[in-house]
């Protein structure tokens, strides 16, 4: 066996953020290596560096012993590195057959041979019946197959698969797993990123775990699944709260005049059999859940399961395809986003989504754009500054100059400025250092204590379940489990969903 790929001290910086941190990595011929890690760990960035879609900041990459660190992407494809894209990139207006022909021509300049090879790949991928359909008319599953098929037309020596199973239904997933085995049997070496743990645990010969851009563990699936570092990375910290004194949003302070902690008769958020899609790609199949006034409800599930989509659907950033979203007596699914905010439903989006070229204070003021909250602006601003004293210090600074933790605080603060009755938080601990994560969770509890209903999406499952009254587990766009937070914490189901064990 010989080495197919090796990276040395591979590093990628985005501005100040280290996305891939000195990763040393090697793959032997014929291996299937699973690359796992929580959101934002740097897996896709790693793929982009290996395939040449991004330039490395430092370090070297070798393919079959040859250095390719600075080779352009198309040369790497010629050398035999095939890849799929997590955000699928078919050639939408070409037919499925033509999509494959583009790659087939690379190996077979003769048209006849190219068509024959493309037809063979189509056959192998079970796409024959769609050969003359345009790529944009395919379903998610079809597109994912097309991604793999297109990479296969290069007869790759090394195949990089980026989440080709996530988002498929069990039958489709099974088919894809079968297919990946077959591809390996034909001689390709495979590195795959996958969030469906069952799949990756079952398929991989070896697993490499990335967290915050660094390689934190490596070994057989069994070794990795029982590695405490890995469990921490996936399910969050086990440690209890430290006793560091904190400025908090002191409980008992009246939370403004239009709502208060005592308001237990407030509206309930209810989703009933909601379906939603991005374009043709359906993400939510059947989501029903309820958040009652004063509750803190967590929504957990693997990456790509539909957590963020659920929140976006409630916030009306995404059209509801079918089903109902109700808040009190109002049907949210008929409204526009800003009206939803006006009803008192605020969302703190994943990745903060700050207005980077505006100052901290401007970001906060923007949060109180509504006429309803403008009069309370001063009070609310004071409250946010009391909750996050650092923000007061930095209020003249541009948002882009804040650290990750500060940015998250600002995002939450901005959400609070609209005086919400229900606050939806999407992955507030994402990409933050453990001590900051602690602080975020403390803040979430304080907010809830304030009487604001909270719907929390978190990948730090341990922490989320510990503070949640109730939680829902979502898998492949469907709610599969519901129960009190602490109870779910002990659930084997939850572990299975995250670690595939």
């Amino acid at each position, binding site marked *: 066996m010989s080495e197919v790929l090796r990276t040395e001290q591979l590093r990628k910086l985005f501005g100040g953020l280290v996305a891939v941190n000195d990763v040393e990595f090697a793959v032997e011929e014929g291996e299937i290596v699973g690359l796992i890690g929580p959101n934002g760990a740097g897996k896709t960035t790693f793929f982009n560096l290996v395939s040449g879609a991004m330039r490395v900041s430092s370090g070297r990459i070798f393919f079959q012993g040859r250095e390719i660190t600075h080779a352009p992407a198309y040369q790497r494809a010629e050398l035999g590195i095939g890849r799929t894209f997590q955000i699928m990139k078919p050639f939408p207006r070409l037919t499925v057959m033509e999509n494959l022909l583009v790659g087939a021509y690379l190996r077979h300049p003769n048209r006849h041979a190219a068509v024959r090879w493309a037809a063979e790949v189509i056959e192998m991928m079970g796409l024959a019946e769609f050969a003359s359909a345009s790529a944009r008319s395919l379903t998610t599953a079809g597109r994912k197959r097309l991604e793999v098929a297109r990479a296969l037309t290069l007869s790759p020596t090394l195949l990089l698969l980026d989440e080709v199973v996530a988002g498929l239904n069990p039958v489709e997933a099974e088919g894809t797993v079968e297919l990946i085995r077959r591809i390996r049997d034909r001689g390709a070496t495979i590195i795959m990123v996958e969030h469906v743990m069952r799949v990756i645990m079952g398929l991989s010969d070896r697993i490499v775990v990335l967290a915050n851009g660094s390689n934190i563990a490596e070994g057989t699936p069994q070794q990795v699944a029982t590695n405490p570092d890995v469990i921490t990375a996936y399910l969050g910290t086990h440690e209890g709260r430290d006793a560091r004194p904190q400025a908090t949003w002191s409980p008992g302070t009246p939370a403004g005049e239009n709502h208060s902690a005592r308001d237990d008769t407030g509206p309930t958020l209810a989703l009933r059999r909601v379906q939603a899609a991005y374009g043709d790609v359906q993400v939510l199949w059947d989501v029903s859940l309820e958040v009652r006034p004063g509750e803190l409800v967590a929504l957990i599930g693997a990456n790509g399961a539909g957590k963020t989509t659920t929140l976006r659907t409630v916030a009306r950033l995404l059209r509801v395809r079918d089903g109902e979203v109700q808040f009190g007596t109002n049907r949210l699914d008929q409204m526009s986003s*800003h009206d939803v*905010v006006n009803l008192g439903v605020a969302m703190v989006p994943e990745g903060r989504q700050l207005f980077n070229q505006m100052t901290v204070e401007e970001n906060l003021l923007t949060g109180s754009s509504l006429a309803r909250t403008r009069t309370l602006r001063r009070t609310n601003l004071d409250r946010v500054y009391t909750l996050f004293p650092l923000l007061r210090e930095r209020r003249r600074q541009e948002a882009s100059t804040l650290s990750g933790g500060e940015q998250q605080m600002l995002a939450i603060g901005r959400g609070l400025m609209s005086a919400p009755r229900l606050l939806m938080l999407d992955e507030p601990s994402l990409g933050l250092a453990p001590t900051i994560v602690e602080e975020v969770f403390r803040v979430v509890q304080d907010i809830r204590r304030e009487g604001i209903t909270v719907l929390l999406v978190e990948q730090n499952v341990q922490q989320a379940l510990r503070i949640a009254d109730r939680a829902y587990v979502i898998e492949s766009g469907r709610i599969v489990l519901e129960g009190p937070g602490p109870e779910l914490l002990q659930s084997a189901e939850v572990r299975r969903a995250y670690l595939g064990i």
Partner: protein
Amino acid sequence: MVEFIQIVVNGIFTGGVYAIIGIGLSLIFGVMRIVNFAHGVFLVVGMFTTLFFFERLHVDPFLVIPLVVLVGGLLGVIVERSLLEPIARAPEHASILMTVGIGLVLSNVLLFTFGDAPQIINTRYSTSTWHLGPITFSTALTISFFLTVVVISGLALLLGRTDLGRAIRAAAQNADAAELQGINTRRVRSLVFGMGFALAALAGALLLPQLFAHPSIGPTYTLKAFIVTVLGGMGNVAGAIGGGLLLGITESLGAAYVSSSYRDVFGLAAFLLVLLLRPAGLFGRSRT
């Protein structure tokens, strides 16, 4: 030396008006991601609106500016609502074609309404001047530069200090996040297009006392607006001010010291270089 200063001063004064044209285009691009090929025609609409009120109301053309701005703003909102909103999600070439079409229709409406003789108005300050030492200032240019400064300062205040301004900047930086703050981004888009139209119309009103109006001169100004915006950075409003002044001065110096028949080449060359070497504009940071 005096001559040089004189030429630079002229450049700055002309550049002020260029800045106003560019700011509108930049706002529109920033918030709506539309490269507005009708922008110069909006300016010409402003010129003719000024002309119309000047002739009907027999008042000073600078006095009818509020009316002109109002008309421009309304037209902008109507155009956005009826023609641009429906294609908001279409690929970018659709908006390019659409604005080309809008420009053609508008300039022809002007042609039917006002005829195609160049229109020149004579005011008492069209040719009067004042002096500061050896430097001569055109009164019309001075008034229009003064108004430019006022309008740009007002705009800076609006964008920097008011809820509306923050809403516009928020929508430009991240439309989804803006919606999540309760900002009606759809309304912001209409408003911004209205403002862009109004600013172009304002520039037309400012230029009319010294220049002429003709339904077909729009594209010349569209090109100027593109240059200003690219120099300053597409979508960068503050950059557009710098871009406008820079273009004004470059053109003035080029025309004086190289050749007036190549005058537009200097701006275009700068435009191309900035596009290639600093796509975020001379005054911008790259946005990701």
